[in-house]
């Protein structure tokens, strides 16, 4: 599987964010998108996810499921956690697993992997920022998707959490997954770097 973008141009609110962007990533690879604030890292991830429409160029996936769009084969982990404060940790995860079409399984095992099994009955409103991030990561494990689009995945995670997450990414890469992550810090796995923007 190979995900590539050719001559991609992104315009947001009448302002050109980036243009002539070329990138490619294959199965088992991590593409770390770096660049200063406002350079378009998040916009690039949203373009790939199909949440934004590119103003020029094209993004293509070779070797994926031809029936599905790139977004439908991807997990998107944005700044916002997509958690409902009124629902418990288990209910939140159960919902996303059912809605995104994961296999019905006990979510407790998934929660254990991200270190949240002790908090499974807590409403998500009481979780700390790091715990919320861990719960979002659990979504990536509960439903299998070959492409992970991660926006600042390690933000708010403690050292143990970052190590745990690096392990999860390694497992995903080992099963022929593909990761594109916008990041400022080290991810904990070997990654190719893609510099976005730079100028305004």
């Amino acid at each position, binding site marked *: 599987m190979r995900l590539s973008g050719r001559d991609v141009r992104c315009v*947001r609110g009448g302002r050109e964010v980036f243009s002539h962007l070329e990138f490619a990533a294959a199965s088992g690879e991590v593409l770390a998108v770096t660049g200063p604030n406002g350079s378009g890292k998040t916009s690039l991830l949203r373009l790939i996810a199909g949440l934004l429409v590119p103003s020029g160029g094209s993004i293509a996936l070779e070797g994926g499921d031809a029936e599905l769009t790139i977004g*439908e084969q*991807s997990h*998107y982990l944005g700044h*916002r956690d*997509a958690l409902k404060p009124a*629902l418990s940790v288990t209910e939140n995860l159960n919902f996303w697993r059912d809605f*995104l079409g994961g296999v019905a399984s006990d979510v407790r095992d998934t929660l254990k992997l991200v270190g949240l099994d002790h908090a499974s009955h807590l409403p998500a409103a009481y979780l700390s920022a790091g715990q919320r991030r861990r719960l979002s990561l659990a979504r990536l494990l509960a439903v299998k998707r070959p492409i992970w689009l991660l926006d600042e995945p390690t933000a708010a995670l403690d050292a143990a959490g970052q190590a745990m997450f690096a392990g999860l990414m390694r497992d995903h890469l080992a099963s022929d997954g593909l990761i594109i992550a916008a990041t400022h810090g080290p991810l904990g796995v070997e990654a190719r770097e893609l510099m976005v923007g730079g100028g305004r």
Partner: protein
Amino acid sequence: MTALAALIRRDIRIALRVGGGALIGMLFFLSVIVLMPFALGPDLPLLARLGPAILWLGALLASLLTLDRLFTADHEDGSLDLIAMSRTPLELSCAAKALAHWLAAGVPLIVATPVLGLLLNLDLTATAAVALTLLVGTPALTFTGMIGAALAVTLHRGGLLLAVLVLPLSVPILIFGVAASEAAITGPLSFGAPFSILCAVSLISLVIGPFAAAASLRQGLD
């Protein structure tokens, strides 16, 4: 199918929990109807004559009150991005969300109607007629309101805009809902004609609502 069932279950659960919309709409409906006899005075024939219109207005405003959170809550916490990206068509997800909203916020209004009818001096036939028209008409209110809710997503604090956009669309529903209830109570028109039109309006909104809402959400995702 499991995806839509999960979405409906989640939305109903959130609506029924503390801070959810179901209770707020219900309380609003109750307070409007309970205050009406105090405002209008103890003129029983007048109350009975205005009763259906008051119940309908209360239901319309109560459903508007909770509709503006239909998509904004999901937009703010990022859920809407994932819903739009998923393999479930956005149109179906919109329909499922509207259905959940109706089940959590619309059905309680219909259930409360017989009790509130007593306060407005409505007899059994009149109450039954109003409840029946509300049962047919409130889905139309939700499904047309959903279009406004989807448009308001991109604008922060779009609550007022929602009212401005949705109220004109709900005028036909209000007219035929009240007309049908009054026809059943006082005549001389037959109940069938306005009621059939109300049913038709409801069915049209069930079809158009999800498509229009999904289209405006796609435009608005940014």
